[in-house]
Structures are given as C-alpha cells and as structure tokens.
C-alpha cells in the first residue's frame, strides 16, 4: 500500500491555530462547560507534539485530535463520578457578536443550543461530530467507539428530540 507520508509540521503556532477552538468545542460538547478546556487543550496538543507516528493527511490529524480531546473529557467525567459538575443553567453561552434587530434570532439560537446540550451525551457527541465537524456516521462511529448503526440511531433520536422540543420554532427539520 502506498501511503503518502507528508509530515505535517508540528509548529506550536499552527497546532494552536488549527486545533485550540476545536478542542474548546469538544470540551463544551462533552462537559457542557469550557472551564477545563485550556487544560484539555494543553494535554491534547502536547500529545500531538510528541507523537512520533506521522499522519496521513490533515483530516487524519484532525480526527486524532478530536478523539484524544474527547477521551480526555470522558476521563474528566469519570473523575467527577460520570456526572457533569456544571448544570445547564450555568453553561456559558458562546460569545457572538450581537447586532440590533437580531435579538429574536439570537434567543432562538440560544434555545436550540440549550436543547442540543440537554441531549444525552451519546447523542450530543454524535450531533457535534456529524453536524458541526461534518464527519460521516462511519467516521463518528470510529471516533466514539460505537457501531455505525448505533451512531445513526443516536442521530435519529437526537433529531426526534429536537423536533419535539423545538416544534413551532422551525419548519425545516432534517429527516
């Protein structure tokens, strides 16, 4: 098998530029909080820096970062007794530029985010990896250590929950 071994550089600036916000979103998805994101980011990027095996391509590297950060978050959840320490009401909202006239949309976006973040973790991580990161379900399955069928089931259940909880706010739901 001929595999390209184009060594992706491990320049600290690039690693932070490419992956810091990614890890932040992973943390937010798993922990419902960004409080530990910087520590998780540190550990993840140090592991990336010290990893000796090359990556196939940027996509391979990115998936690796997602997996390592997700595992770190899972470990934190285990350390906390498998329950997040931060309640939903305490979840910080993402910082977004707010302009006049967008209040209604903004409130709706916040409600959607709250609804997604209230999903069980397996569904939440599947929604994040599939709909935000754009991974196909088979790749999501590999990252989370589940079967493709299980991931599809989680996405289906997540969409059903969103459909029920946000009925009236939206007309267009993915099947």
């Amino acid at each position, binding site marked *: 098998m001929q595999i390209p071994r184009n060594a992706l550089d491990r320049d600290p600036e690039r690693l*932070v530029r490419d992956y810091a*916000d990614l890890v932040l979103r992973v943390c937010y998805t798993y922990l419902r909080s960004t409080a530990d994101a910087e520590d998780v980011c540190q550990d993840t990027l140090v592991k990336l820096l010290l990893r000796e095996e090359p990556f196939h391509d940027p996509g391979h590297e990115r998936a690796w970062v997602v997996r390592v950060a997700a595992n770190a978050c899972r470990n934190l959840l285990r350390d906390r007794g498998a329950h997040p320490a931060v309640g939903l009401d305490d979840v910080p909202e993402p910082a977004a530029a707010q302009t006049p006239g967008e209040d209604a949309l903004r409130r709706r976006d916040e409600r959607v985010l709250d609804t997604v973040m209230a999903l069980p973790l397996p569904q939440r991580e599947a929604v994040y990896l599939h709909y935000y990161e754009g991974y196909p379900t088979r790749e999501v399955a590999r990252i989370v250590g589940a079967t493709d069928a299980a991931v599809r089931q989680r996405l289906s259940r997540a969409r059903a929950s969103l459909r029920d909880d946000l009925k009236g706010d939206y007309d267009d739901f993915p099947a």
Partner: protein
Amino acid sequence: MTSPLDSYTASMGDLHFSDEAKARMAESLRAAAAARDAEKNAQPAAPAEVLTMPARRPARPHARRWVRVAAGLALALVLGGGATVAVAVGVLPNPADVLSDVFGGAPSQTELLNDVGRPIGASATSNGVTVTAEAVAGDRFNYAVAYSIEFDDPAALEGIEFHEGGTLTYVGDAFLRVDGAMSGGGLVRLYDADPGDNTLQLVQVMGVQTWNDAGIVGRTARFSMSKLEIYADDGGFKTLAAGNWNLKFEMNYVDTTVDLPAGQTTTWQGSAVTIDAVAVSSLGVTVDYTIDRQTRDLALPGEVSDEALEEQATTIGLPVIVTFADGTTFDATDANGSAVKHGDGTTTVSKATTYDHIVDTDDIVSVTVGDVEIPVSAA
C-alpha cells in the same frame, strides 16, 4: 436559517478561545517542544535528567505544567513498553471456545481456531462487574477478541429481553486501541452464551489500517469501557453496567497472512485502477488499490445522501470476492476501509475484513478484485 441544526452549528462556530489564551497556549507549547528537543539531545545514560527540566525553567504555571506533561511523556517513552494490567487467573479457555460463535463451530474450524488464536486472560473489575479478555485471533490487519463480562450480582441479568440466540443490541462504548492502528471498523457482538450464568459475552471483530503497514501482530492493545448499554425494545437505552474498565494485552496470535501478487491494472466505472496489495489469511482478506478518481468528501452536513453515497462508490466500491475450495465465495466489497486522496488526483483505498468463518489458507482459491482474479496458488 431554517434548520435548528444550522442554528446549532452557527452557535458552536461562535465558540472560541481569546487571542490572549491562544498566545498563552502557543507559548506553553513551545516550552513543551523545547523540553522534547532537550530530551532528544540528552545522553542516553541519563534519561532521568528529563525530570529535572521543569525546575530549571522559569515559566508561568501553564508553561510549567506543559513541560511537566512533556517530560512525563518523554520519560514514558524512555522506559518504554508496559506490562499487562491484569494477569491470568485459573485455566485459560481455548480460543475456539470463545470465538466459535463468530467463526463457526465445525470441528475442523475449532481445530483451526485453536491453532491460530491465543488465550489472553487479562481482566479488570469495577462496580461488581469483571471484564476479561478471553482470547484473540487475527491476521496482519484483522482481529477478533472475545471478552466475558461477569456480574457479581446474580440478578443483574434478570428481566433483560434477549433476542433470538441470546443476542442483545449493543450500544456501549467499549473501545480497543491497538498500537499502530490509525483507522478501521468492524462489528461488536454482545450476547449471552449461557443463560444459566451471570456472564455476557462481547466480541469485537475489526479490520484496521496502520500508518506504516507494519501489521498489528505483537502490538499492544488497550481496552477501555465506561458503560455497557443495550438498546431496549421500548426504544430506550438500558445501562447494564457503568464503571471504569481498562486492560491491556498483546496481540499475540499466529498470523497466517499470505501476500498475493499485486501490481495488476484494471478499470472501475471508467477509472484506471492499480492493485497495490492483496493478502489473505485464515481469518480475512486485505486489499489496497489506487484509483484514478476522487470523489467529494461526505463530510458536510446534509451531504450524506444516497446520491453522494453512490458517487463515493465509484471510488471505494470496487468489488472484492474471495473464492474458497468448496466453491463458496465471500463478498468483501463493503469491507472496513479507508480512502486517502493524493495530490495527483488519485485515491488510495484500503479494505480489510474477516470472513464469517475460519478457513485453512490452503482452501482459499483466489481473490477477485474488480475483474482481476488473483489465484492464491500464485503466492
């Protein structure tokens, strides 16, 4: 925006670290890189020097922490390896006893499975549940590992509605990471082989790709699981066990992989194909090929449509059929695989999968890739 998922992705896109935080992290990462470089340049006889480095470096708390992490990891590399977490207790099972549900139970197959597979016996206990890796069998890129999950509570499995054959719809998070493997896929089966005991059986059957094609035989495998869940008939998830199970073992089994001649060319859906590598074993088949075509990634939201999947099949759908001596065949077209795009417009596709039964490699007649039949006798 018309979809709540559009709204969700927009909100997530707004999440970001501050520039100050990013600068702080970059600075700390540079410190970690310096520690790594210093370790590489250190005398081999003084690996412990790595541990003294953080104390010499005047840095802010985060930077010190990064250096400490880097030094710790570097020391781990110096020390190398690691022992199996748990040791075998009692009599280890024959591989066929715990893997025959996957690879068939005919006497000849039992004998083969015992020849190829190896017992493991590594276990971990958490919250009254003991997970034991019982046995492993595999080849260069495929493996099957059988685990037992024993509940201390004799009533733990009461009230569970099993499917036909004692199977359950597994939705847990059991994960086995094999050193060197960078992608792969397969199946996980959860079932109750003996309704009279307090033990369930879990089997992972996977085909993997490694970053340097080195194979997985002899590599260290690390199993982790935090929950064992099933999908219940009422549509909900039922948690059978939650805890923290981590165990480690070696991928020690007899590798029967036979490399077949490669380099043949053919076409698939109008695109030129070069067969890079083909290998068969008692358990499975591996095929790598390069096709002069690239299809779009199915990575963007909303693009995983039937049309997009059909388009992807023009690259990864090259048929792979294994023919056995008794005239039966095994279709490996939809095997676990990976696809890597190259700068010259081609795509390298790797496929690996196990059969549904174990065979003697002498009983494998050929592998047909596209319209190219490659006889095993030519190996």
